[in-house]
């Protein structure tokens, strides 16, 4: 079980921090994550359950281990460059792994309680990470994240008791029973959606996102944009697999949320001057695209493929973009003339942003291509049309970064050399962004 490796890593890096060795904590994280990835890769293809059917080991949950563990390594390296020698640096690594554990528990949930548990673990660890800077905005951001989390969590828990009440067990698979009272199923699903919508920052449960992102260290913002979100969307897919459509037209509901998220995220991002906030809104939009795969999950195999490939693509291009932001600066004006100072980083940022738009042959395109295919095949043409119109708006958003990078005059300040950690991360994600697009075959079932 790769998840056990993750748990041991979390404890190990905590111990290293308690001994005052943040470096050891970082290395524990890297080795542990690589171990978890290795275990997951060796198991790919197996479909089974664990812990008396409450946890699913399947394509989604194994890929989640691979995607998120590797993402966590990147984020830890970024955090090291950003937070080196700050007070209690090692706790960051430990918290990153704990939060990852929460996300992984969600992605393999075969049981209602695992969804709840996963969201809670991931939220608690996330709150501490957001507050790491110990400034007023950081406290505010963390509070927003925490309070939204506790309220939505409470609502979700309350609603889910109805599910447990009518099905008499906590297994998700027990939901697939046409004799259940549809009202109770609807109520339970909506509350569940509130909890998951919070973790995945879907509209209208996204309000914490921009503030929390802005207040956190940039590396933590990168983490927030990927790990809890991929966890939440995969968890939603695990639930949606079992929900009978006859009882509740949940694909329609999710489709509407998807359109709202995409449109809101992209349109509001058009006005942001802070790149971290801009990317925060862009992640809200990206979560909307992600939902296309969940909507079609019962209809075709393409949807599962789409979720995994878009998950990989989203993780690499988003982490890459945040890495460049960490190197360049968080304001739009910091990017003025960046291409003249660091031409390769400018090319990298362009590739990440175009991949977020979905320009082939990059990773983001491969993901969106499968998502659109899944939506069309499931008969949701309107959803696919809404998604492509949003892709055009998102191009306008990302060009707001690309244009000053190339066409404005650089600031007169001397150029600082890029920290090796940042360089490692952006180059790796850059290569992956291109490789995943071209080597799509390796990631399909």
């Amino acid at each position, binding site marked *: 079980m790769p998840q056990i490796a993750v748990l041991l890593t979390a404890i190990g890096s905590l111990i290293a921090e308690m001994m005052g060795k943040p470096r050891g904590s970082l290395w524990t994280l890297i080795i542990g994550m690589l171990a978890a990835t290795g275990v997951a890769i060796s198991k790919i293809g197996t479909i089974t359950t664990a812990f008396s059917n409450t946890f699913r080991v399947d394509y989604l949950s194994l890929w989640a281990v691979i995607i998120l563990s590797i993402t966590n390594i990147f984020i830890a390296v970024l955090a090291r460059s950003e937070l080196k020698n700050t007070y209690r640096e090692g706790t960051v690594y430990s918290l990153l792994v704990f939060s990852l554990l929460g996300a992984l528990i969600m992605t393999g949930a075969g049981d209602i309680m695992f969804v709840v548990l996963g969201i809670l673990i991931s939220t608690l660890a996330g709150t501490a990470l957001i507050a790491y800077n110990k400034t007023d905005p950081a406290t505010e951001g963390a509070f927003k994240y925490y309070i939204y989390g506790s309220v939505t969590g409470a609502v979700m828990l309350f609603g889910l008791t109805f599910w447990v009440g009518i099905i008499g067990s906590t297994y998700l698979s027990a939901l697939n029973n046409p004799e259940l009272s549809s009202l109770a199923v609807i109520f339970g699903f909506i509350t569940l959606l509130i909890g998951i919508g919070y973790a995945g920052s879907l509209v209208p449960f996204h309000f914490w996102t921009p503030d929390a992102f802005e207040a956190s260290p940039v590396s933590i913002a990168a983490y927030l944009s990927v790990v809890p979100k991929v966890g939440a969307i995969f968890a939603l897919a695990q639930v949606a697999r079992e929900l009978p459509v006859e009882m509740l037209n949940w694909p329609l509901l999710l489709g509407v949320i998807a359109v709202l998220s995409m449109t809101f995220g992209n349109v509001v991002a058009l006005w942001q001057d802070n790149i971290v906030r801009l990317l925060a809104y862009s992640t809200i939009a990206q979560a909307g695209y992600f939902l296309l795969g969940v909507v079609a999950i019962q209809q075709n195999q393409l949807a599962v493929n789409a979720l995994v490939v878009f998950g990989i693509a989203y993780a690499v291009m988003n982490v890459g973009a945040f890495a460049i932001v960490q190197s360049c600066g968080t304001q739009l004006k910091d990017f003025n003339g960046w291409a003249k100072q660091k031409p390769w980083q400018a090319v990298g940022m362009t590739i990440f942003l175009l991949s977020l738009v979905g320009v082939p042959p990059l990773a983001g395109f491969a993901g969106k291509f499968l998502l659109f295919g899944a939506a069309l095949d499931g008969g949701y043409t309107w959803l696919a049309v809404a998604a*492509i119109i949003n892709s055009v708006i998102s191009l306008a958003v990302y060009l707001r970064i690309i244009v000053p990078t190339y066409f404005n005059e650089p600031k007169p300040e001397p150029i600082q050399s890029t920290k090796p950690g940042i360089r490692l991360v952006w180059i790796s994600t850059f290569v992956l962004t291109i490789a995943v697009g071209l080597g799509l075959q390796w990631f399909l079932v």
Partner: protein
Amino acid sequence: MESITLPLLSITTFLPLLGTLVILLVKPDKPRTTYRIGIGASTLAVVTSLGIWLRGVGSSFNQIEQLEWIPSLGIAYRMGIDGISFPLVLLTTVLFLTALIYSAKIEKRANSYVMLFLLLETACLGVFMALDLFLFYVFFEVTLVGMYFIIAEWGHENSKQAALTFFLYTLLGSLFLLLAFLSLYLHSDPLTFDMRALIANPPLTGLAAALTFWGLFVAFAIKTPLVPVHTWLPAAHTEAPAAGSAILAGVLLKLGAYGFIRFSLQMTPDAFQQFAPYVIVISVITALYGALVALAQTDIKRMVAYTSVNHMGYMVFGVAAAAALGKGAETSALDGATLQMISHGVVTGLLFLLVGALQDRTQTREMTEISGLLKTYPVLSGLFIVAAFASLGLPGLAHFPAEFQIFLGGFSAYPVATGFIILGLLITTGLYLRAIQSVFMGNPEKEIDSKGDLDARELWATVPLIAAIFIIGIYPDLLLSIIHATTELIGF
């Protein structure tokens, strides 16, 4: 029985990209060296494309090159040519070579400029030779990115705005294309992105066919462009650097035109036949509107840009007439439309290069401010006048055989619409004659002679195109025989 042959198609496609890599590795510090590499790579591409011709183009898809790519989804790297795509390949390699020769004076960030141009060339060649929807789409989108940066960085005063409009507009179009492709794929049996299979056995019927047809239509109408989605074109053409405009008009517009034939006509033939009247109406409006608006321009580059709209109207008219007539009818409409793509590429490409040369000398594009150029720059003016005559459809020059066949084919399908669209010829004749009169005739108002007449570089870029105009005009059969073999086979 398979023998190992040189993959000439892939070599032609990726030679320019190889040039990009060479520039990236060598990092020449003199623009001269950069242009040598760029021109060298694109000359080789012309040579290999001639090699493809020598091997024999044939009527159906041939010289196929195929490699596994994403077998789970029925996607493969498939390349091939037929009589419709090969002339476009030739046009692309020749135009890129002349555009690069013409550009050699640009010293501003020459490395990036040449690299983008070569990348764009690879993408355009890939579009015309791809036999797989996925591969086609990849190349199709890469052209957008390349062109965006060329317009924005090396263009004129309002180039950033124009580039942005171009990018957003055409991205919207290409995303509709993506949906249409996915729809074709999802209805194919067995599931495949192989264009040959989709053409041999068009998978769609009924509502799905109609939706897919209109999805394709929106995509290609924006790219071609047709009225009312043409509004990105004048700005992009006017603001781009001269060589960029030549490529944009000469090659990139053909992506849309080629799409109409390859996808709309060949993959959704029944839907196209059903909706042909609408397309006819739109194309007549496009041709007349383009001509009338061109008449109203005082900026000479904008005027040429709008005549492109007019010519693309004829082109789409030809394709729609072919669709309306259905299989087994006379092929002259489609022959003409295909030839029109080539002749428009050559003529308009040349016109944009000459307008660029003119602007370098007069520092303005306003026709009211220039006069008597024939006396100041006789060679430049002479070439421009020949190109203008070709553009208005003078017999013996490139456009005439193409337009003649389009109208011939159109007349048997829609005589009334043909009557209307021919009015466009009258208007373009008028506007070119007026432009020639005001710009080239008369006496020069003031002495502008900081530069002499066309220099060697400009002559190398323009004379081959002039020669091509005469060759196509006098001996169109050189290309028509290739085109006709294919149109006859596919029956339109």
